[in-house]
């Protein structure tokens, strides 16, 4: 309860901060629309040449893009900005302001994950959901309630996996200040715009087991079109739970290395 009240407060403070820079709104709008348009047109151009791509139709591929945009929006809503305030350039670890955060009587991981909100990402969330709805309507099969339920579950697990990866990468800041690992991850995460099945075998293996970004977007899309086996559902749940646990333990261990920065 106390944590929910705090999140409410964090959101309000972030909102006030965000609306103080009103001119940024139009630039954000432009970037969001460019992101949407290039993504959708990318899929459109490919399917102008072919009807199916290794078993994925136009609508199904579009649904993977929809999941990608939705998950990215969730990330930019709070996980990204919060972790960035901790570990990013000029973040708290860098400046030494983490001293004050450590003094607060609550879970540091909670603070590091929920403190900053970027409410403009709600617009991106709408765009992502819009692509998803459009893709779902244009699919050949009718949507069933069970498919939608499975989809929402796997989307949640996917977001959890992404959170775990980002938390672990942010924890690396206690060893080497810098944002390089995050940038590399951002590059690799781009691959999740398309279904895993499109890529050659070795890329697929790497994106399932080494950096599981493929799991984050492809499995929810499979759930939406129907035909996701119970094993896959269980796989994605187990992976999310294990990764979040490991990342939390790692984050705690990393935090112990912190040796302040101020004089």
């Amino acid at each position: 309860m106390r944590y929910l009240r705090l999140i409410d407060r964090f959101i309000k403070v972030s909102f006030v901060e965000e609306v103080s820079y009103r001119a940024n709104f139009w630039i954000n709008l432009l970037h969001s629309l460019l992101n949407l348009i290039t993504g959708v047109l990318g899929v459109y151009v490919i399917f102008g040449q072919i009807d199916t791509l290794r078993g994925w139709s136009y609508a199904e591929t579009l649904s993977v893009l929809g999941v990608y945009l939705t998950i990215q929006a969730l990330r930019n809503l709070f996980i990204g900005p919060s972790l960035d305030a901790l570990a990013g350039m000029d973040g708290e670890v860098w400046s030494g302001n983490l001293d004050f955060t450590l003094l607060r009587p609550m879970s540091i991981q909670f603070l590091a994950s929920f403190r900053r909100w970027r409410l403009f990402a709600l617009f991106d969330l709408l765009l992502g959901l819009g692509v998803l709805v459009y893709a779902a309507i244009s699919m050949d099969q009718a949507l069933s309630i069970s498919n939608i339920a499975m989809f929402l579950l796997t989307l949640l697990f996917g977001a959890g996996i992404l959170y775990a990866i980002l938390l672990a990468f942010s924890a690396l800041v206690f060893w080497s200040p810098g944002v390089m690992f995050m940038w590399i991850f951002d590059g690799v995460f781009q691959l999740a715009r398309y279904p895993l099945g499109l890529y050659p075998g070795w890329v697929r293996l790497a994106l399932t087991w080494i950096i599981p970004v493929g799991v984050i977007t492809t499995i929810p899309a499979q759930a939406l079109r129907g035909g996701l086996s119970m094993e896959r559902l269980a796989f994605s749940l187990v992976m999310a739970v294990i990764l979040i646990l490991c990342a939390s333990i790692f984050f705690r261990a990393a935090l112990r290395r912190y040796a302040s920065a101020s004089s």
Partner: protein
Amino acid sequence: MNHRGGWALIKSSWLSWMQYSSFFFILVFGWMITPLIYMLVWSGAAGTGTLGGLTSGEFIAYYLILILVNQLTYSQTNWTVGDVIRMGDLNHWLLRPMLPLYNPLANEVAGKVVTMIFVIPIASILAVVLRPELHTTWDKVVLSLLALAFAWLLRFFWGYWLALLAFWTARADALLALQDSLVFLMAGIVAPVWMLPAGFKLAASVLPFRFMVGFPVEILLGQISRQDLLIGFVYQAIWAVFAILLSAFIWRLGIQRYTAVGG
């Protein structure tokens, strides 16, 4: 005109950039990812047959060369010109006894040297692993190098005039983002230009963006008729001259209203 000073500036920027080489390697990794995704998508879609006149191996060749060309013509310098104007660092440029243009040029050369140290080995490894098929002739190589030189000229000065708008508005960077999106869609990155849907293809053949990246690659692969080649060179030259004149014009207007303190 002080050209020896210019050369000294180029050399010193290049040496100072080398100190941050790992930073640039990661930046370049991010830029390479997008063409790599479409390489995997298209070569997978072609399978054992051909698609748009290219086999799977030819798609790999197309995109490997495109990665090199994209990196050689991409002008990362122009993203910083706006900051230089806003922060007043432009004062340093103006005080040096040489053409101010030497400063962004020095950055440009430095950037190319550092990024190529990374891009060429990666592209070579990919070429060994993915086995591209390339059939070309010497006259095509020469023509394509000529097109590459113009492509660089065009892309650099096109970005430069956009960046110089920072004399009037603090938001000129948004136009650079828009340019990157248009390059993605129309310069042969999302798909080779001749495979785009009709409307796009028409726009791409007239607008400057295709001549910044895709055009030299098309020539090298021989995917262009003699007549289109000639028309292409004419368009490329016209756009390049236009961009240079426009930058000179905007520079002259902007510098008259430029004021700064300190720097």
